[in-house]
């Protein structure tokens, strides 16, 4: 397997970081770099990136720590409110759906003169329908709760 590192790498990196590369490099290291593929690559890449870093640092314009903290605090508080209001949303939704269902049943009852005794008799005769409805509610509730409590 070919070599992937050289024991002089650290010295090359130090030389580049301290500005000794390439002009003030000592003779021994200079000779080594000219004959070592890994070190010549390390020297070239690290010199390039040192320049890049210096240029990037010239461009830096960061907000103050206080501003970043304040924004984070505000966002954390907003998220806490959102999480805390999820059960309220759920209860409101269930209450709304229940109200609509009751109103619809009443309206239907008045408009079509549904015989409630007949409805009761139907469920007594076919209790499976009632169990089926209950099973659907039991299956759907956890899914609804998952969507309410899961993160976006």
């Amino acid at each position: 397997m070919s070599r992937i590192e050289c024991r002089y790498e650290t010295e090359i990196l130090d030389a580049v970081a301290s500005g000794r590369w390439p002009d003030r490099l000592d003779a021994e290291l200079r000779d080594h770099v000219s004959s070592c593929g890994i070190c010549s690559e390390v020297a070239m890449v690290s010199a390039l990136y040192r320049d890049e870093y210096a240029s990037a640092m010239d461009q830096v314009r960061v907000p103050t720590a206080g501003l970043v903290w304040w924004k984070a605090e505000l966002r954390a508080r907003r998220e806490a409110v959102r999480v805390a209001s999820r059960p309220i949303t759920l209860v409101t939704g269930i209450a709304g759906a229940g109200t609509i269902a009751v109103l619809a049943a009443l309206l239907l009852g008045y408009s079509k003169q549904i015989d409630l005794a007949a409805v009761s008799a139907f469920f007594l005769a076919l209790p499976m329908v009632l169990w089926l409805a209950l099973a659907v509610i039991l299956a759907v509730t956890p899914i609804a709760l998952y969507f309410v409590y899961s993160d976006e």
Partner: protein
Amino acid sequence: MIMRDITLSELELLRPRTEDTDDTLQMDQESFGAFYERTARPVWAYLWRRTGDGHLADDLLQEAYYRFLRARVAHENETHRRNYLFRIAANLVNDNHRRQPVPLELPEEGKPGHPVSDFSIGLQSQRRADLDRALVHMSSRQKDALWLAYAEGSSHQEIADTLGLKVGSVKLLLFRARRKLVKLMGGPMVAVKGKS
């Protein structure tokens, strides 16, 4: 309807509850301020250089610190904390690139979208343009590793912590990334053969 008087205890409840927020932010403001002063500039430089967009770097910087503050991670020391922050920043950059893939060729220098233009002149400018074009053909992980190793001066262990790799993998990653970059830039500039 008559409004009743508000009590002192009710007023207390209305006061912003900063102590609760401190619990969710996993750090107190003073410690954060000190940590931010030490890390914000290099993190911004990394974000700016990887995205080529100052405004995006600003947004990602805020997001990186927010995620850092919300993460329930026990940091062993300052280095670990810093590496963790860079890890978040690297993930944000990569997520952003996945959503908005970078163009195969970078815009020419002086055109909109080029990350460096105003202050780069002469040879340095040419080298930077060459580097930009070369980096387009490298993977995000290679770019991250090169930046951390040669711009930040991070050790192999620190890079491994930041990128979630083993030290051996980092050495191989750096070796291959260096070789590819040098090849893409037309071979090593052996400055030692003459005095450049």
